[in-house]
């Protein structure tokens, strides 16, 4: 019982904390972000396993985490609100070459980020060539170029 509760608590705790931290924090990972993620993993490990290194305990914890994850994906596919709550919604930040400044600043996306994504994906040189730029749920920026090119 203890192991299931611990795993469930950690699952939802991390879900909430990472949702609050925002999608731009760990999505475009730098080396340091990666190190930070490893440290966070280290910090949760003793809470999950406690001082019981038995195989059964570890198996229960792993299965509980995976089960919650599957259950959550099922809930998400059934209820749209739940999906929005857990994953967020995509946001358009450039429309027809026009930056939407207020959205960009709150989403912590700079003009340089948009241009970088535009260069990387479509070899776009100027802002006017972008039809839409969207911050996706995953945290990446998607660029739709103007039809004329």
């Amino acid at each position, binding site marked *: 019982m203890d192991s299931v509760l611990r795993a469930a608590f950690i699952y939802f705790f991390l879900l909430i904390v990472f949702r*609050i931290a925002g999608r731009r924090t760990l999505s475009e990972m730098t080396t340091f972000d990666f190190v930070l993620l490893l440290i966070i993993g280290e910090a949760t490990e003793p809470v999950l396993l406690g001082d019981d290194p038995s195989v059964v305990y570890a198996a229960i914890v792993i299965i509980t985490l995976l089960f919650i994850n599957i259950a959550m994906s099922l809930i998400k596919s059934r209820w749209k609100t739940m999906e929005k709550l857990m994953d967020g919604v995509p946001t358009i930040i450039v429309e027809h070459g026009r930056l939407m400044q207020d959205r960009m600043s709150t989403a912590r996306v700079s003009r340089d980020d948009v241009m970088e994504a535009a260069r990387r994906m479509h070899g776009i040189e100027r802002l006017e060539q972008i*039809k839409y730029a969207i911050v996706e749920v995953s945290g990446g920026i998607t660029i*739709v170029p103007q039809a004329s090119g």
Partner: protein
Amino acid sequence: MKPRHSKLASLASDDAYAKASGRNSKPKEARSVQVDEDMVWQRRTWTIQRLGWLAMGGLVLTALTGVFGYGPVSCQQATDPAGLVRVEYERFQRQGSEFTLRVDVAPQATADNVVPLRVSGSFLDAVEVKGIAPEPREARSLGADIEYMIPVAQSGQAATIRFALKLREVGSHSAEIGLSGREPARFTQFVYP
């Protein structure tokens, strides 16, 4: 057939519509890109995130004060009414953590080369005694409580007894530590899970 037609129409008029609608007056219908955007939701999320960051910062500062254990707020002292025993303890602790409880005994109480120290049973239920320095000469049961007979080298000198403890039970528990036959020092500890 009809809905598709209107969709095509909106596709074609996308540019014109967006220009006509000006800055931000709901050009959602006109967008050719099929993004499931929900700006009301998004703005609410951003607000909640900002509040969450504040809460996280607040939590870090609170943790620095020691409200979650080991800090200036947490480190406290309790004295018995007669002023013979002073206990240094942590007000807030965490389950499973080990800490040292320091008991200072005044010179008046160290006669006969022995200090009879009484520790309440409710406290001993909540903690596990890993060790006592100096080792008691004798430990006796006094009802639910335990009386430790702590040896002292020089009678009439102040003595310090250290208890190495490990916290077992979650929640608030009160403790009484004092010389047997006298009013003990009382304190309360809160143990986080």
